Every structure is written in C-alpha cells, then in structure tokens.
C-alpha cells in the first residue's frame, strides 16, 4: 500500500521561501516516518535533507512536524495516519534546509543553565545517593535534546530568548540532584524573565515529549524554587 508524503522543502540557495513537494511511498505496518524519508532519499530524491541516526528514539536527531505536531520520525508510524501526511521542519526554529532546523539557539540555552554537576569537593570515591534521592531527578535526566518541546512551546515561538522547556528541565535536574551544590549559580538564569517566568504552563511540551519526562512540571517546579529564592533574597543585604 502507498501513502502520499507532502514534504515542506526549502533550499536557501534557490528558494526565497519554503514550498511543498509530494512523494508516493510504499508503506506497511512497521513503516516509520523516518523509514519513509530514507526511502525517498534513497529511491526518489537524493537531495532531500533531514537529520537522523540511531533510528531507535534515543539520539534525538530526526525531529520533524508530522501533520503539525512535533514528533520523532523514527518513533512515528505511518500506520497511524491517513493517506496523506504533511511533514514540516520543526516549528519555532529557523530552517536551514528542507527538514533540517537550526538548533544552535537551543544548544546555547542548554549551556546557559550550567547543566553539569557543581560540587567543589574532591574525592576518589563515589557519592552516596539513595534510590529515593535518585528518583527525585531521574525522570528529568532522560531528556534526549530532541527539541520537540521547543516546537510545542508557543512562548519560545513568541520569544526565542526564553530558555525553554528542555534547558529549564535540565537546570531542575541538577538542582534536584543530591550531589549538586550549584543551585545558587543556576538561579540567576532561572529568575530572569527569560527563565522560568517565560512559561505560562501551556503544557504541550509535556504532551509531545517522546520520553515522557514532563518538562512543564520541571519548569513550574522551577517557578516555586525561583519564588522561594525571591523571598530569601529580600532578607539578604
């Protein structure tokens, strides 16, 4: 059986704006969006540009809009869609070419929240951390940086300087880690208007997250932390 894939294409060297192009793709019960894209690239049109690698939903490369919803191409199956499917590059990012978004802004936001363990103590031995302490942040450590949440977030769409769901979740992940002492260094970023306060709890980010780590919850827990930090700062000289 065949389905029609409508793909929004853009070649910056030729086009002033994107246009869509249709391809007929053979589909069976296990054909993913990524499989279909690979078929097109191999059989029909080698100029089609998209990112991919692991094809098992862990590397986070093949993010794409499927009928307007951000999805991982490798974990989205055409059996769940009608005869015509629309593929577009990730929303809210600039498009470099075809289905390749420019995600540098996302990487910069990640870097801004200091997403690494801050703890000056030196030791040759591992920290102790109970399974309960691990459970506090473990969910938020599962982010694969696929960027789907940024495409789901209208606040990021409206204001690209908003740090966004994944970066704020990562900040929360480290702030909640019993081994970390860097919260004070991370809070200034979170306290700003482009930090946690840029979020209005639309919540769609959590809906599209392929790893179900509920970034909206993380961001809003960050609001509680930031509000607490605000009160504490009032009592400091």
């Amino acid at each position, binding site marked *: 059986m065949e389905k029609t894939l409508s793909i929004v294409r853009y070649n910056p060297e030729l086009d002033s704006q994107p246009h869509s192009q249709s391809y007929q793709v053979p589909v069976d019960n296990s054909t993913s969006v990524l499989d279909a894209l690979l078929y097109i690239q191999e059989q029909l049109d080698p100029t089609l540009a998209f990112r991919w690698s692991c094809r*098992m939903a862990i590397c986070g490369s093949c993010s794409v809009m499927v009928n307007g919803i951000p999805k991982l191409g490798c974990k989205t199956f055409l059996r769940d869609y009608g005869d015509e499917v629309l593929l577009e590059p990730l929303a809210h990012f600039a498009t470099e070419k075809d289905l390749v978004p420019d995600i540098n802004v996302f990487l910069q936001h990640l870097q801004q929240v200091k997403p690494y363990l801050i703890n000056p103590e030196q030791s040759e031995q591992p920290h102790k951390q109970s399974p309960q302490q691990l459970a506090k942040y473990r969910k938020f450590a599962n*982010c694969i940086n696929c960027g789907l949440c940024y495409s789901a977030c209208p606040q990021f769409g409206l204001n690209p300087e908003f740090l966004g769901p994944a970066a704020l979740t990562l900040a929360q992940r480290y702030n909640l880690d019993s081994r970390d002492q860097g919260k004070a260094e991370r809070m200034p970023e979170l306290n700003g208007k482009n930090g946690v306060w840029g979020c209005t709890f639309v919540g769609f980010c959590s809906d599209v997250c392929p790893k179900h780590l509920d970034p909206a919850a993380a961001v809003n827990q960050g609001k509680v932390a930031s509000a607490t930090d605000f009160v504490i700062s009032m009592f400091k000289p």
Partner: protein
Amino acid sequence: MQIIQTDVVIIGGGGAGLRAAIAAAEADPECRIALLSKVYPMRSHTVAAEGGAAAVTLPEDSLEQHFQDTVAGSDWLADQDVVDYFVSHAYQELVQLERWGCPWSRKADGTVQVRRFGGMKTERTWFAADKTGFHILHTLFQTSLKYPNIQRFDEFFVLDLLVAEQQVAGVLAMQLSTGELFHIQAKSVVLATGGAGRVFHYNTNGGIVTGDGMALAYRHGVALRDMEFVQYHPTGLPGSGILITEACRGESGVLLNKDGYRYLQDYGLGPETPLGQPENKCMELGPRDKLSQAFWHEQQKGRTGDYQGHAVVYLDLRHLGCDKLNERLPFICDLAKSYVNVDPQHQLIPIRPAVHYTMGGIQTDVQCHTAIQGLYAAGECASVGLHGANRLGSNSLTELLVFGKVAGMEAARHARQSRAVPEAALKAQCQEQLQQLQARFGERQKDTVAGLRREMTMAMEQGCGIYRDAAGMQQCLDTLQALKQRYQQLKVGDRSKVFNYELLQHYELGFGLDVAEAMCASALARRESRGSHQRLDAGMNSRNDSDYLQHSLASYQADGSARISYQQVNITKSAPAARLYGAAQSKEA
C-alpha cells in the same frame, strides 16, 4: 577556505571524543581544543549503548578476574599489558563519571549497583537503568560545557587528515551547514569516530557509524588491526537490528527457540540454569560470539521461528514481572512495543543476531599513539588491543573513558612539545582534496550512492557473517573491489552547498568500502576460527595458536587494496587455554 589554528583536534563527539576533550582541557588549561563532530555530540552512537560499563567493584571481585574474563573473552588475542592497564583504571573512571553527575542506578544503601553481564565471572557492570550509554554521553557532553578551552565544531565532516613527514598537522573539514571547507591546523589529532557497523546490512548501529576515522588513518598508512573480528550481538530486533541489551539476560531473561527450548545448553553453555536464577558465564550469560554462533546452528537445524520473513529466536522476559521491567529495563519495553509490537511483560520478543561492534580498528599502543606522530585514536575506531577476537559486553563503555582520557592527555602533552610542519606540503594536500571534492560532482548515472551502499552491505552480510568460508569471502572481496571501481565513476548530482547529504554519503561510502575491504581481506587471510571469526572451511574450524596467535594488520596499498601482515600478541601472564563457559568453567574453577 577558512584557516583555524588550534592545538588539539578531536574528531568525533561521542564518549571517547568527549572524554579526550575533557582530559586535554584539564591537563592543560592553555591548550586549545577543537572538537569536531559530523553530528551534534549528543547524537553520537554512544547514546545507544544500553547495558552498562564494567569495573571491578564488589569486594569478592578482583582485577585479576576481570583481566582473566577479558583475556578469555578475547580468545587470547587481547594484549595483556593493555588489559592490565584497562582493568586497573576502570573503576576510577566510572567514579569520575559519577562525580560528574552520571545517574548510576543505586542500591538501597546509596552505593552503586552492579549487574551481571555476559562472559563476566562476577557482577561488575555499572548501569543507569537500560540507558547507560545515553547517560554517559550526556554527562560527558554537559560536563564538557564547563571548559572554555574546548571549542566545538558541530556538524563538521572531516575529509582528510593533514600529514607531512609522518607527523600530523591538522585536518581538512567541511561545515555541513554551509559546505565551506576549513583547514584546521593542530599539533595533535585524536580520532574518536566510532565503529563501522554500517558496512553490514543488519546492524544495531546508527546511520552515522560508517567507519570514517578508520579509513582516514588507513589511507595515511596506519594499519587497521584485527579487522576480521566483527561482533554480532545475539539480540537485535529482526529487520531493523535495533539493539535489545544483554542486560535483559543479565537480569535473568532467557533465549528460546521456536519450540520454547533453551537451546544454549546444546552449545557448551549448559546445563540449563533455573528460570530467574542466572549464573555468570553460563547459558544466556555466555559471551556474545558463542551465543550468535548458537543462533546460526539453530537456524541450520530449522529450529528458529519466523518474524516477517526473518529467522528469529525469542527472548523471554515475562518472569521478571512488571516492577523489575519498569525499574531495570524500561527502554527495552518501550522499544519492543514500538518496533515489534510486543509487550515483554506478557509476550516473547523476537530477536536475531545483528552486527554490533568492530573489535578491530586503528592500530595504537597502550597510550593510544598511532604510527603517525601526533595522531591518536580511542574508542571503537581504535584497536588498542583490549578486545582481541571478541569483546565482552560492558567493556567498551569503560574503554571509551579509560582510553579516551589517555588519548586526550597524550594529545595535550604532545601539542606542547611538537615542532612545526612545513606549510607548503599541507597546502598541497588541501588543494588536492579540493580537487577531489570538485571531481565528485557530475551527472548522476545508473549507479547511486544508496545502490552501491546496499550492494556493499549485502556482500559483507553474505561473505563475512557469523560463519565464513573461503569461497564466500573471496566472492565478497571481489564484489568490494568491483564496487570500488564503480565508486570511482559515481557522481554526486546535487551541487548545493548547504547540507548536501548526497555528498556526505558519497564520502562515507568511500570510507566504508575501504574499511569493508580491510575486514574481508583480514578475514580471508586468517585461516583458523577464533572468537567472532568462525570459518567453515576444513581444517580451519578451530583455533590455531601455532600459526595465528597474532594480530592481523591490514595496510593500505597504492592501488587501494589491503596488504595483510601480522603482529605479535603481548602475552604477559595468561597463557592461551580453552575458553570454557557453562559447567566446564565451574569445574575448572
């Protein structure tokens, strides 16, 4: 062409590359490090490793035992000085990662949890649920963000190493987003480009695992060592080859043939262990080569099942129960549901062996030096001499860390004291590469990159599979050589500069063909069976220590073919013996 000056170039942003970058940055805060990767670092294939990383941890364990397991696992083809170094530095590297924030799974008392793994005598595999590689990679990537002297070049593809007078002097790379060429001058270069599993058709590897770094070094005269040893992972999903971790068996999963029989007991791994009570080095916890070979025999006997046209056996996790599956193997459950529509809690997962890992690679010594001054290699692209003829599961994630660090420190040290290389020679090399690049463009003919790639991967699958014979390998080698001829005529029709994936894949195919040929030629020359290299030919179906207790070295010749020679294995304290698993090893011990 832009020119960039730096001290150390690291090619590859996976586990080994990031560990090397951090090691270099810490060794010398003045050292400028350029980290080049053809994908964003967190996309690197380290991300897909599931099971864990090995290091002696429990009081009842010993470095000696880890050493013995690794050497026996390698079928005595590991260099024992290297194994010694590895096992004695493994623990501190895993602790280092812990101190950088890796969310290792824990016991109730807050100490790190270890799990069983195939071929290991004792539980010594650290894990972070069943996404260990993912957590290691992200921990390293995020930690690397701390160091201002690491400059990242994401989505840069290296076209060539720049070498003059047997000394490396930088790389020539293309920025994928612009098509622009960059001449990056450096005193040291670390190759950390991963394996080459994608030269086979059915594999557990990501699309990026195309052997680029191996080919880069190979073409400059560095030998590729032990390339005939390609690991088939016994449990990949049929069709896609998606990895189902060995940790499933570590957590007591069992393998069944189509009759529901635990067939491994027929292949020297028995007797059958009771369900839910796995024993180290027995049955399902045997080494990967033995398990994949057992599958092949079952298939010959007609005892495998069928999943959409693929011969399969079955992984049974049902007895683990909901809680344990969710705690220890959540990703596996997700993968099984998504890709074969199976709920492991109630159903059997169809699985079959798929190419997983290249034991061989760029020849280095224990300090990750290659034959070219200033050029280092670490991780799967390298053959430091750790894995020999068969790698034990959970040794490779630790390898990334132990030898990634060594390579980074050595590269930083070398950068401080190296002399300048004549620029004229480098300019000429850049010009030559530029011309080669231009020559790739042209009208598309009948052959396509995808078509040739498919022929290559099918040829490798047929000729260099789990069991090999002379005729099959010779045919494979002939096919590869014919494909290389056709590759010379293969043109890239897309002339765009921005994200020209046709061009990128054209390069990758060229690299892959060279690596595949080195594999096949090495395999053909090794007239014995050892570890993952199993021959059906008469007189070659067992190990032959008197002739082949040696590393193979494939060297690139002017005409592009591989010349095979041999190198002594470094044996210090463990004399070659029979590899014993199942009841046999218990008796021995």
